[in-house]
């Protein structure tokens, strides 16, 4: 294992100062909690506060989306491990501008518990707080068990839409409804080619045999739905589009936002090779792509693999997805 680190147990502590200084025009660290990152744009004209958080190792999730018109405060966890309830609690305090706070995060056991505890404390402190739990990964559980599905790259759309709604002056109820609608209309699937290694563990957290690929891989190496002989990019794209489209279902006449993300070690060039076929496949199905994002939007350390996310749009979600944002990871004019 050759990595650019100092101490394998201090990755998050060692990363944050670099991130914060490089992006000091957009974000800063909370004075009350070293694991709470706050947008410099939070605190102008009062609006609903947007909070998220999760384990580290998924750059640009989660801190990379903290900024103007997107997320106001982010709770930072250890590698692949939920932030503390206290960090979420501080996020709520920082993001609160008197109009309520929406916590928008992914469906993982640790995050659910810590958010739940933070919400209890925030409510006691008199802050109005609600949550939306992303569950866009179609491979993580069957359609009949949406509560068991994990949140993956679709969370980016949830933050984008929730943040936009708040920026438009929406009430907490409207922001929550919009973020919920965004994630309800979003589906994702991943394919894994090679595992990642958490430096403090020192060994890969799972294995994928040469010549095979794992369809439905999770963001922490959670096993997918099946292991198959490795296909070319076209074959992968066809399979991913089918899995995602069959689930909502997306169909002829739909307009979608498209997000393709590498899992960390995947060259962006290869992501565009896959994207080319995805565009063809969607055209064949009569689905038009309103806006697309291709790049490393939600990764898993140095895992090799790729995810596909589609969000079905209506007028409201289109307006949200078009909203300009300025964050360390995403700048949209």
């Amino acid at each position, binding site marked *: 294992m050759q990595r650019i680190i100092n101490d394998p*147990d201090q990755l998050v502590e060692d990363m944050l100062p670099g991130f914060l200084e490089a992006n000091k025009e957009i974000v800063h660290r909370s004075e009350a909690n070293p694991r709470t990152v706050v947008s410099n744009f939070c605190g102008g004209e009062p609006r609903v506060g947007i909070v998220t958080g999760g384990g580290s190792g998924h750059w640009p999730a989660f801190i990379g989306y903290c900024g103007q018109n997107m997320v106001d405060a982010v709770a930072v*966890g*250890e590698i*692949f*491990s*939920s*932030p*503390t*309830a*206290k*960090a979420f609690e501080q996020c709520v305090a920082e993001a609160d501008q008197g109009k309520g706070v929406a916590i928008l995060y992914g469906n993982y*056991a*640790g995050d*659910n*518990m*810590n958010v*739940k*505890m933070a919400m209890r404390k925030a409510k006691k402190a008199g802050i109005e707080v609600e949550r939306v739990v992303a569950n866009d990964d179609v491979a993580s559980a069957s359609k009949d068990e949406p509560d068991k599905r994990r949140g993956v790259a679709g969370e980016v759309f949830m933050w984008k839409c929730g943040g936009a709604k708040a920026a438009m002056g929406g009430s907490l109820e409207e922001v929550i409804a919009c973020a919920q609608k965004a994630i309800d209309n979003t589906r994702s699937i991943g394919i894994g080619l090679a595992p990642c290694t*958490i430096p*403090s*563990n020192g060994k890969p*957290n799972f294995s994928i045999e040469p010549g095979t690929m794992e369809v439905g891989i*999770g963001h*922490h190496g*959670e*096993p997918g739905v099946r292991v198959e002989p490795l296909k070319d990019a076209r074959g992968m794209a066809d399979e991913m589009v089918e899995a995602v489209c069959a689930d909502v279902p997306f169909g002829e006449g739909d307009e979608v936002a498209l997000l393709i993300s590498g899992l960390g070690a995947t060259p962006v060039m290869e992501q565009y090779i896959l994207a080319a076929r995805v565009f063809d496949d969607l055209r064949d199905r009569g689905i038009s792509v309103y806006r697309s994002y291709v790049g490393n939007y939600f990764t898993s350390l140095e895992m090799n693999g790729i995810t596909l996310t589609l969000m079905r749009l209506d007028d409201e979600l289109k307006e949200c997805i078009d909203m300009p944002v300025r964050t360390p990871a995403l700048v949209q004019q």
Partner: protein
Amino acid sequence: MAETIRNEGSAGVALALCEAIHESKDRLSEIDGATGDGDHGVNMNKGFMLAKDRIDVGGSLSDALETIGDTLVDDIGGSMGPIYGTFFDTIADDLDGVAEIGAPEFGEALADAAEALMDLAGAKPGDKTLVDTIMPARDAFNEAEAAGKGFADCLSAMSEGAERGWKSTEGMQAKLGRAARLGERSIGHLDAGATSCYVILSTLAKEISARL
């Protein structure tokens, strides 16, 4: 043998818990490595060592347990922070202000803690989690108490129940937590959380008994 221990001055029980987790660190990580991230021992040790430094050595048991609970919630995160944090905070709340802790007080605190933990984690018996250690432990304690046994016997029944429950996780398929993603492949491995829960409950039993 006395039937109660004094709450005041019994912080040593909590310190012994921290020590027991510290000593189990490598074993917990090893067990976790078979089905999870392999960081359970490291995380638990981090939390309990932080707590140990914050415990008032001459203080009450309830205050010391609250220090452990608050440290786990505030500084550890993940799944284990809120789960064990809630467990210890609930026991501490129940015992707060109780001068002499006997079987009825401890039994009630244990039952409340088990309840709070299940409510937070959403885990049921058979899911291959620490609930599978704590529920048989709680039941064994209650049965012993109902049968009119003394506090020491109730505690030793709790310890035996915990051990039985912990060992039963080896044959279970994980339904919750990261190991759940392994499905059938999780069978044949002990659950790491159930293991640390056994360490905690058996240490509690031993240390309280020693002070009766």
